[in-house]
């Protein structure tokens, strides 16, 4: 984490309104936060709170119509330095695992020999060494999601955006993937923003939690998760973890 005055990512009053058929829907209103490089931010909230829209704004896929979004990093190129993964693995069925991971690098025209080695290393990092030549249908849902995480990292992006990456997995696989994503995050040193509706998942994975509420869509809280590292699943039974999780539930109006 750099101690510079400018945070890596800075949002000030970011808002987005959709207009369809003469009706206006506020998807995101007045979101402000700063995020230092190398942090892991969880955006947590119920469905319809605009967290996926916010992620798409960060990804540069949707323009925001108010406020300011700044990424302060020397040489940051939003068309090259962002990696994304979604709830569905979205693998190309006709490509082997390694070639799926290489997709963003191919599109960017990166040198293939070096990138191929990097893709192999990433597959090892996500625990899929030896599966390079398999087809997606030969993998379980959890393994497919690992491939999509490797793909999000293959072009060495500075910012990794994850949209409910474990939302479609069963509870046990999801817990394993929570440990995995922490391991991948800490060994890659990337700045990560993850959208989730799992309160436990958010507090466990992230170093920063932002709470968004629905109707109206707005940012209700933002705090640092100060829990010891490295985190084990058992940390969820500690009073410190419980207090942070309760804080999120409270902001969501669930307690």
């Amino acid at each position, binding site marked *: 984490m750099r101690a510079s005055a400018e945070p890596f990512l800075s949002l000030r009053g970011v808002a987005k309104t959709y207009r369809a058929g003469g009706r206006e829907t506020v998807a995101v209103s007045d979101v402000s936060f700063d995020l230092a490089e190398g942090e892991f931010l969880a955006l947590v909230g119920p469905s319809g709170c605009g967290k996926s829209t916010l992620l798409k704004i960060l990804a540069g896929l949707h323009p925001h119509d108010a406020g300011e979004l700044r990424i302060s990093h020397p040489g940051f190129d939003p068309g090259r330095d962002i990696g994304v993964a979604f709830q569905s693995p979205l693998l190309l069925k006709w490509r082997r695992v390694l070639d799926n991971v290489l997709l963003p690098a191919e599109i960017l025209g990166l040198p293939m020999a070096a990138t191929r080695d990097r893709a192999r290393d990433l597959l090892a990092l996500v625990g899929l060494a030896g599966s390079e030549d398999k087809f997606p*249908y030969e993998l379980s849902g959890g393994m497919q999601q690992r491939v999509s995480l490797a793909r999000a990292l293959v072009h060495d992006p500075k910012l990794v955006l994850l949209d409910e990456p474990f939302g479609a997995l069963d509870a046990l696989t999801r817990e394993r993937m929570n440990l995995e994503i922490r391991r991948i995050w800490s060994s890659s040193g990337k700045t990560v923003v993850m959208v989730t509706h799992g309160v436990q998942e958010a507090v466990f994975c992230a170093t920063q939690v932002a709470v968004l509420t629905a109707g109206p869509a707005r940012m209700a809280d933002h705090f640092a998760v100060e829990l010891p590292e490295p985190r084990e699943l058992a940390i969820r039974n500690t009073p410190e973890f419980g207090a942070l999780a309760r804080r999120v539930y409270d902001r969501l109006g669930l307690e």
Partner: protein
Amino acid sequence: MGALRRHAPAVLAHLAVLALWAWATTWGGVPRFILPGPLETLRALSAPQIDWPRHLAMTAAEAFGGFALAVVIGVLLAVVFTWSAALRRGMMPLLVTLNLIPKVALAPLFIVWLGYGLVPNIAITFVISFFPIVITTARGLAEVEPELIDLVRTVRATRWQVFRKIQLPSSLPYLFSGMRVAAVLAIAGTVVGEFVGSEAGLGFVMMAAQGTLDTPAMVMALILITLVGVALYALVVLLEHLTVTVDARLR
């Protein structure tokens, strides 16, 4: 061994039909001018007045030629539709309307326009097998998960990259499902063309043999027509197996 066991029921079913045919014509009392037995049908191949290889080659050329033309033009048109929304909105409904024309009824017109022989029969085969290909391929090209497009847009994929790396390969299962339907239609189109006007081809053989009540030649021609259809269908299935992974195939 596993393959043998898996295909055994299908092989047995085919053999059973052959056996039933042999039984019905030998002991079942079916008169030979209605339906000749398998051996007698086979013997029609040695009839000196019919040049079987030439007729078979003609029918195969018409069926494969018309089908290939339908695939090429069908895919090209589907691609054009994905690149131009305006063209798609105008042309797709038009295609659906044109598809409702009973294509076999075009055969007499085609003969007026194109004369006798290979060309009008390729044209009939083409129009009858073209629609399922263009319609399924256009659907396949359009059905790409929006989030996948978002994913590649974050690395600024060009329209061409999206098309070549995602849309085109993901439309292949749809193309093949269209081609399987089209292969069955194609052979029907070819034979109808030959019925209506031609001087060669297995359909022509059937019409000529009908005049002399030569049922063995008629049944033999029918079997060869079917085999041409089987070959066309098998080619499609083979290509699909070579290019589409198991889980992506549409059934």
